[in-house]
């Protein structure tokens, strides 16, 4: 464990900027977002969390897959894989974990998504522990925690004027090369321990019985009830660090164009509408159920883990205050009449 003075952050970032695309939390209006910074001063590390997760650095809201030019008798294709080296600074532990979940989707046994994976392999994640979890945070219910280093390369723990730096991977260590940082002494380690102890997530969600319910409750009346309030706006899925659904479209003029992918969401009716007009998920009920089932059942069936990290963004962004923690509890408690 090393020590980094807070007043060294700017110079450290400035040192990284020529070699990497450096992303950090930046204040924009009344919220924070991850942006590529041109100078170390832009980074704001005393923030709660970004409105949109850093997922968008590796899996952008909109990106070109390839461009083409149609010629007589053929077509020229140019792939648009981004091979630049990146560092993301200030990643919260929950968001770091989300990358491990996205890896399961985009780095499959059968197919690999070269756009995500190339960026992923070229990106170093510098985490920032959460001294004061927000009221909406519930990472500890999902085997995470405000100081979990899972998925990170470095983890910073804020102990006042300094960060205690936990070196998690070799890649992380390389980022600090040339910094000659002192090893953290007894006192700093004590301070870090105190900070970690006092950081608690106020809500604990009991997920114990949820999967058993979801295995049998597809036809439960609870879904109609839960979906009643939902507007289908998809704010929850757009701000979710684990949602990975996308659309693919062509944008073209004349003989040239690009194939583009854009974030999409299971909360939209057009998402599943067949060409014939038939829709397997015709109403909000089916779509709300899909969102919950995907995260807490299907993902578990396929990858052995829940696709939620407890970042609480969906709770913050829902215009009708649908709180996923309460939804989970209601589902767990409902019924019992089916088995």
């Amino acid at each position: 464990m090393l020590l980094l003075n807070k007043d060294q952050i700017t110079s450290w970032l400035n040192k990284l900027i020529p070699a990497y695309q450096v992303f950090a939390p930046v204040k924009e209006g009344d919220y924070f977002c991850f942006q590529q910074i041109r100078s170390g001063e832009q980074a704001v590390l005393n923030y709660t969390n970004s409105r949109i997760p850093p997922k968008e650095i590796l899996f952008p809201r909109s990106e070109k897959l390839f461009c083409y030019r149609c010629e007589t008798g053929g077509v020229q294709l140019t792939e648009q894989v981004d091979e630049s080296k990146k560092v993301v600074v200030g990643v919260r532990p929950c968001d770091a974990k989300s990358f491990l979940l996205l890896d399961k989707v985009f780095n499959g046994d059968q197919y690999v998504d070269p756009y995500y994976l190339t960026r992923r392999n070229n990106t170093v994640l510098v985490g920032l522990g959460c001294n004061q979890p927000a009221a909406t945070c519930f990472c500890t219910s999902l085997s995470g925690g405000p100081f979990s280093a899972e998925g990170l390369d470095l983890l910073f723990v804020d102990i006042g004027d300094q960060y205690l730096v936990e070196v998690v991977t070799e890649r992380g260590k390389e980022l600090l090369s040339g910094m000659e940082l002192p090893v953290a002494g007894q006192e700093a380690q004590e301070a870090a321990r105190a900070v970690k102890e006092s950081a608690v997530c106020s809500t604990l969600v009991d997920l114990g019985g949820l999967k058993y319910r979801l295995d049998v409750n597809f036809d439960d009346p609870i879904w109609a009830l839960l979906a009643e309030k939902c507007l289908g706006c998809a704010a929850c899925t757009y701000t979710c660090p684990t949602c990975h659904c996308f659309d693919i479209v062509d944008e073209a003029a004349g003989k040239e164009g690009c194939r583009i992918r854009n974030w999409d969401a299971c909360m939209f009716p057009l998402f599943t509408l067949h060409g014939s007009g038939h829709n397997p998920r015709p109403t909000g009920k089916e779509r709300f159920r899909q969102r919950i089932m995907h995260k807490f059942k299907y993902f578990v069936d396929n990858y052995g883990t829940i696709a939620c990290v407890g970042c609480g963004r969906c709770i913050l962004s829902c215009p009708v205050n649908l709180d996923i923690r309460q939804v989970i509890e209601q589902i767990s408690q409902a019924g019992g009449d089916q088995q």
Partner: protein
Amino acid sequence: MKNPYVPAPVKLVRHVVETDDNLIHSFTFQFLKEEDEKAFVYRPGQFAEVCVFGKGESPFGMASSPTEPGILKFSVARVGVVTSALHEMPEGSILGVRGPLGNSYPLEEFKGKNLVIIGGGFAFTTLRSLTTYILHPDNRGDFGELTVIYGARNPGLLLYKDELAGWEKRSDINLICTIDAPADGWQKKVGFVPAVTKEVAPSSADAYAVVCGPPVMIRFTIPVLEELGFPPERIILSLENRMKCGIGMCGRCNVGNKFVCKDGPVFSKAQLNKLPPEY
């Protein structure tokens, strides 16, 4: 890292109007590059994403069979943006194909068994692939009796009319064509596919049934097959959920915990019985 999103360029070598209502056209493609053709090794029941550059891509089941090397054939109904653009493409146009995608009909399981292939409307595409594959001299001996029941609303809406005529003359396939209502000059069966299936009553002994068609047809045909003694493990269906990526990533086509694109599109009734009916 192989990029699964990039299509191989193909040339449209044949574009024919397949049905009298002009709604279904068939397209035959040839790969521009030999390496792409070599890499495209497929089996009946698989599909591909076909793209019209500038308009987008759509999934279509291969109507051609691997026993017809050098070409890929699709039959496409005009329903929206991409399919309408396809219908406008003149022969000689350059398009893109990526695949093959999805699983296929379980040919290994079918080996040595009798097969009852039941199709309705324009969903006959991959069934043509399967039938053509089985009828190939190299393969015919691997399978038992072959019964094909194929229905359309009227004679003009049957796909592949020339080939059907050819199959009718063969002794190693029992082809039954039917139309919904009597029509001038039609001397074969009249009636909906489920009713005709009941009448033909193919034996379920040592047999698999493969069913593709509009949802209503499937809904009423399955009970008939069950009555004939086909267990759900030996009733094979192909699903068509809306798709984009075709590789299990865009999250669009799932039925429960299965992706139709990657884990399907071919499922047995027994498998579907364990999944929610979201298709």
